């Protein structure tokens, strides 16, 4: 998983930096501030997203994620700060901005008694150079559903229709807010595949999520937002690494050995015995070093397990509200 993730990420970054060389950033937000009366939803948020990047906005409920995105797409007016989408201001240049930005809003539905094709064709007619309907429907797995009423669609199908509407205008930037909330595991994975396909067409994706696995799997970089501030901004893997510098190797030795054998290695910081198990903490190429050292002493390490920290650890460590890390679903109620 970790290796796979690394490759994807590097490929994404290479692509992103290549594009960046040809134009400015797709999204640039500097010192955004927005409060609702006395409640400061966004205190100071800045980040910049390169073209072709999948950029995640992560954070606990009420952290200011949705408000940030709503300001970015012109649904709300920021109190301070600047927002540029492909160089356009969401308010001053709203006509052009709406043509290049496709949006999937959290909690937005369609009338029960409209058919899928009727909804899609209506939204399609809003854009000067729209996408091909049959292709989009095929990619989104909505083929054969065109004649169905919105009412009869499953949660996953509604979500995919919502994504289809975000992409129907061939946007340069797609903003997806809590895209997979409420989907079953199968539908979530399908949605992830879809996002990667969309990015491969050169669309920049701004993804608001509170699912760690989703951010880890999809995002080139994530901004971790808490209490209206960006508390961390990096690739998911780097954030995870920052969360805990140390790795832990756990194994059962084939024969007893002296701790000194391992503690004298520069990579090893600590060696503990727990019953049959030995737990070695350290950094760098810990597994290889430990196994080679044991091997030289004629000891074999059995049942080796490597425990490396992940994005979820980073999230819990960096934000004030850990409840979200359990993958609990919820709304941004507090921010509204």
């Amino acid at each position, binding site marked *: 998983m970790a290796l796979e993730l690394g490759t994807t990420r590097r490929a994404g970054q290479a692509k992103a930096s290549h594009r960046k060389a040809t134009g400015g950033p797709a999204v640039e937000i500097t010192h955004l501030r927005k409060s609702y009366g006395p409640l400061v939803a966004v205190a100071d948020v800045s980040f910049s997203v390169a073209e072709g990047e999948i950029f995640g906005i992560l954070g606990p409920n009420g952290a200011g994620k949705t408000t940030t995105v709503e300001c970015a797409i012109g*649904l709300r007016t920021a109190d301070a700060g600047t927002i540029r989408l492909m160089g356009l201001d969401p308010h001053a*240049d*709203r006509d*052009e901005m*709406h043509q290049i930005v496709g*949006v999937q809003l959290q909690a937005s539905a369609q009338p*029960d008694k409209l058919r899928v094709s009727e*909804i899609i064709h*209506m*939204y399609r007619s809003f854009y000067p150079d729209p996408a091909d309907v049959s292709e989009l429907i095929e990619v989104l797995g909505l083929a054969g559903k065109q004649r169905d009423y919105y009412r009869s669609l499953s949660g996953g199908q509604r979500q995919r229709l919502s994504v289809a509407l975000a992409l129907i205008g061939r946007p340069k930037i797609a903003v997806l807010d809590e895209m997979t909330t409420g989907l079953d595991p199968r539908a979530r994975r399908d949605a992830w595949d879809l996002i990667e396909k969309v990015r491969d067409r050169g669309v920049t994706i701004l993804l608001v999520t509170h699912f760690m696995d989703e951010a880890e799997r999809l995002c080139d970089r994530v901004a971790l937002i808490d209490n209206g501030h960006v508390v961390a901004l990096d690739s998911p893997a780097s954030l995870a690494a920052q969360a805990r510098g140390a790795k832990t190797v756990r194994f059962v030795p084939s024969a007893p050995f002296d701790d000194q054998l391992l503690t004298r290695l520069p990579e090893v910081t600590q060696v503990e015995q727990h019953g049959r198990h030995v737990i070695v903490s350290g950094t760098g190429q810990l597994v290889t070093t430990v196994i080679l050292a044991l091997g030289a002493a004629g000891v074999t390490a059995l049942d080796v397990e490597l425990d490396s920290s992940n994005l979820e650890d980073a999230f819990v460590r960096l934000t004030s509200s850990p409840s979200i890390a359990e993958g609990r679903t919820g709304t941004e109620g507090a921010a509204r």
Partner: protein
Amino acid sequence: MSSLSSPALSSPAPSSPAPSSPAPSLPAPRRLRATAFGNIVRNEARLAWRRPVGLIGGVALPVILLVVFGEVPSFDKASASFGGLTAFDVYVPILLVLGLSFLALMGLPMALVSNRQLGILRRLSTTPVPPSWLLAAQFLVQLCVAVAIVLIVLVTSITAFGASAPKSIGGLALAALLAITGLFALGLVVAAAAKTATSASVIGRLTVFPLMFFAGLWLPRELMPQVLQDISNYTPLGAAVQALQDAMQQGFPPVAPLLVLAAYTVVFALVAGRLFQWE
């Protein structure tokens, strides 16, 4: 409709191309915008047909009552208490107003509120199309239904039940138009006051029934005590019935009920504009 505005979701201001933008697309050409509006209207018309609250209350109910009243034997005898008119003649404008009220106070608000409740106005404000277009499209569709109600009720009553033809077509058209605008403006107030489609239907019902009393649904205005008649003259539905009835039976209606309807149109439209929430 132009009085409905909000800072975050208002119609797009004239745009200026950003200097740093690589190749800003031109604002959508007029034909594209016309097609988009046409598609919104088409979907709203489909919804009006498929969720027929407005159609059942506005068209079916008055036509059914028309048929029932047309079959009551005593209803086609001229009566002194109705100033020489038949009871059926008296009920035609009342049923017309009944249909328009159900449409304006229940069909229209429920359609408007459900779109807001579903987040469709919000969703539209992230597209090149301003969300006010959806309201305009709904208004247009309901307006067409209102005109259809007027035509259907009049044609049915005259052709099938021998009601007398209107004395002043122009006066009737003006009275009907002002009745529609006044009632629709009141419907917008209901839509603005209601949070959900369910509460819109409750508020609409609570508004429609007392007002229908003053329109003479239970007791025709001619039979009301003078006090009630005076009150009725100043209620939107009472003024509407008065104006329509005069146009049908006497000639061009007097100015008073027309002014009352015009005043309600303006006041209710302003109140609705004040109260309306886009989210």
